[in-house]
């Protein structure tokens, strides 16, 4: 299960496939997603949006079953009280202001006007759009439209948030703010499923990731765990230290070390090894033996992009 370990799964897909005529959307996906932030990563056309649309009941599976919080997605009356979806579609009902847009669906859900207004304003404030909420959505920038969609998705205080490319159109400052909001929402014990094709964005906020390619789930789990499963692909470690060429030469003598690249400033190198544990033990020993001063040791490829590249290129094998 992805997400926080030990908790009951919130989103469960069991053998789910979806075809559009002869075209494959996703194929035989079995997945359990728990509380916390789960990143859904893959290139365009990999099936991320199809998976999200299936989870939210906007489309139905050709095969298999989906349950969210124990409910089937085709029961909006029960499920949508507890689920919010910020879809990728950049379209809005015509003529509405920002607050009118958010309120519209709270009113349709049966809330009174003043309660709907309070909730809408609270959600709009959380996404940092309070000052512009009286303006028409048609005049919003792409980033503002993205924020107001996010406000609409969180306005009814859902337990589960499905966010399809929520950072699209946001400038770097806004991205940082919204990522902070995601962390806050997750800290409130919600389940967030966030898709992105910009991998490092998801990497830095996700507790777990689901990697997709060509309609298949390529890998799932915590980023670190996933990296450790890639036993056949060398782990890369960045070392900054004194006497870097000397240390690099000693490491090259190890059986599992396949490559060492010295940095041009000769104050560090990247070492690639098939055995992470052996590498770290050897590093410790050589540092003590040779009196090398270590400035930093960092995993150089534990980010999702690296893992994703290994997996989709077929050069790695998940354990």
């Amino acid at each position, binding site marked *: 299960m992805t997400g926080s370990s030990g908790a009951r799964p919130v989103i469960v897909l069991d053998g789910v496939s979806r075809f559009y005529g002869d075209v494959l959307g996703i194929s035989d996906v079995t997945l359990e997603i728990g509380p916390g932030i789960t990143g859904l990563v893959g290139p365009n056309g990999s099936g991320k949006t199809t998976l999200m649309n299936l989870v*939210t009941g*906007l489309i*139905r599976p050709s095969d298999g079953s989906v349950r969210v919080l124990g409910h089937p997605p085709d029961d909006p009356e*029960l499920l949508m*009280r507890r689920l919010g979806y910020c*879809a*990728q579609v950049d*379209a809005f*009902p015509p003529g509405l202001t920002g607050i009118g847009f958010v309120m*519209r669906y709270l009113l349709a859900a049966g809330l009174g006007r003043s309660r709907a207004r309070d909730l809408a304003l609270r959600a709009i404030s959380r996404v940092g759009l309070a000052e512009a909420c009286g303006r028409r959505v048609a005049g919003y920038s792409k980033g503002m439209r993205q924020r107001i969609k996010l406000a609409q998705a969180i306005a009814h205080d859902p337990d589960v948030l499905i966010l399809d490319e929520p950072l699209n159109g946001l400038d770097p400052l806004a991205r940082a703010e919204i990522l902070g909001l995601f962390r806050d929402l997750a800290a409130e014990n919600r389940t967030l499923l966030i898709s992105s094709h910009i991998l490092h964005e998801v990497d830095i906020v996700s507790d777990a990731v689901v990697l997709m390619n060509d309609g298949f789930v390529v890998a799932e789990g915590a980023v670190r765990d996933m990296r450790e499963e890639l036993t056949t692909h060398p782990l890369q470690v960045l070392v900054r230290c004194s006497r870097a060429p000397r240390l690099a030469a000693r490491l090259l003598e190890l059986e599992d070390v396949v490559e060492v690249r010295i940095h041009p400033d000769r104050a560090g190198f990247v070492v690639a090894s098939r055995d992470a544990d052996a590498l770290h033990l050897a590093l410790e020993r050589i540092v003590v033996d040779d009196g090398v001063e270590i400035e930093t040791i960092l995993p150089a490829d534990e980010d999702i992009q690296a893992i994703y590249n290994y997996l989709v290129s077929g050069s790695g094998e998940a354990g």
Partner: protein
Amino acid sequence: MRTGTGHPLPPPSAGLRLRQVLAVARLELPRVLLSRHALSVTLLALLAVLPWFLALLFGSAKGPGRSMVEFAGFVETVVVRFFLFIACLLAFGGLVRRELEQRTLHYAFLTPIRRELYMAGKYLASLVAVTLVFSASTLAALALAYLSGDLGAGLDYLLAGPGPGQAAGFLLVVTLATATYGAVFFALGLLVRRPVSAGLLLFVLEWLRPLLPVTLKRLTVSWYVKSFLPLGTQTAPVVGIAASPPATWVSCLVLAGVLAASAAAVVFAVRRLEPPCPGT
């Protein structure tokens, strides 16, 4: 994991569902009244008044009694089978299609409201809008019909005679026709890609009705709506096959059946509807 308690949205109940339908209708009504199609509907309703306005201007004095028989025929033939038919096709046929084209329907489907209740609210809003516009035009035409002959006799007929009862009868006909045509076109709009094409077939059937044998007349909505006219129309058509309209209770049952069948078709279609989204 959050327990789901203390949510701002109330739990499902019959009362909540009714509130949701009314809320959607309230939200949709201004959009319906201000939409591009509302202008066409209003224009059609105004056209229904035009002959009586011209009759008043050019003074064809017949007295209110005779005018009312003609008026009943006018309402049945021209208002219901022509103007109201087209208005309903425009107003109801594209209700969902427009949201699909705007790519905004998914917002409604992601709201904690049953899809069919959302559709009921949309239908209700259009029903209110079209009925209001055509009721106003029918009442205006009725007033002009009363006044097109002898003004004094017309006022007596209107104020002290059977006028108010007849007006209520005509409004009932307009409401029933709007509700039934609207439901049929709403369902067609969900079931077929081009409801206008299917609507045109029904239009031909409605207009050929006087020429059709009774069995085929029974396939038209106007055949049953005619039962509710407060005055009989001309009994012997110039061309066509004469037949008495069905009893009122039969018409009630049939129209209720059409409404129920349309509602069932809407429920069937909307539960299977997949709004367009990127990635699909």
